[in-house]
């Protein structure tokens, strides 16, 4: 990757993360939607700098659509009866998630050539996480897509059933 693409990647990364944080902290629905659109520009820039221009266009359209939905007239606010302590616990869980993912990225098998660490492989007979990940990302990518879509549909169905039961007297 040449310097121009690297600079674009780092600038887009900063833009996307800053836009995401602005979505959390800005006041006003329009401002938050604008911040989400800015984060979308950053994600699209990341994709484009990684030679995935079409995916960048798709991400840009997706984020713009999400921003329009959240700023549009059909938006309705729903306030849950959840205390602030649970939200703080959730924020700490998000920080723990970042730490876990960053640790996985640092200790993963792909990190060896850059960091000097030995790969984190569970077994040497092809049963390790890196082999499974390579298989899912390359040979069986479409199957992984199908499983992901199935999980999404199942979650949506479970949510619908749960809400239907909740409305019963």
């Amino acid at each position, binding site marked *: 990757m040449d310097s121009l693409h*690297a600079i674009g990647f780092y600038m887009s990364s900063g833009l996307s993360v800053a836009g995401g944080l602005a*979505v959390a902290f800005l006041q006003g629905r329009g401002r938050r939607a604008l911040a989400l659109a800015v*984060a979308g520009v950053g994600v699209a820039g990341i994709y484009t700098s990684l030679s*995935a221009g*079409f*995916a960048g266009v798709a991400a840009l359209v997706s984020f713009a659509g*999400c921003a329009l939905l959240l700023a549009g007239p059909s938006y309705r606010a729903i306030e849950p009866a959840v205390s602030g302590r649970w939200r703080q616990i*959730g924020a700490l869980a998000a920080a723990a998630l970042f730490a876990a993912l960053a640790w996985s990225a*640092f200790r993963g098998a*792909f990190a060896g050539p850059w960091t000097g660490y030995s790969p984190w492989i569970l077994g040497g007979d092809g049963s390790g996480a890196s082999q499974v990940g390579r298989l899912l990302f390359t040979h069986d990518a479409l199957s992984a897509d199908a499983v992901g879509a199935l999980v999404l549909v199942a979650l949506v169905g479970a949510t619908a059933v749960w809400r239907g039961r909740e409305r019963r007297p």
Partner: protein
Amino acid sequence: MNVGLVTVLFVASGLVAVGAFVAVWRRDLSHALAGLPLMFGGAGTAFVGVSRFGAVSSPQVLGQEVAVLLSIVGLAAVALGVGLAGREASR
């Protein structure tokens, strides 16, 4: 200045974590939906990065295809959530 797979995975993990943070930080449940496209964007970044730097025996378009799919799923999930919230609020 160089960019490698580890850098991309760090950015992807940051996006996923920021998305999760947005989802839990906003008191308004409808606006917590804004965290979904961020998390999907982070996952797509990881897929694109792996296909860009890690795939050696397959075309790079597989990871890009997953990223496109995740973008569409994120938009659909937000649309579904806003629609459900609107229906619930009108009752």
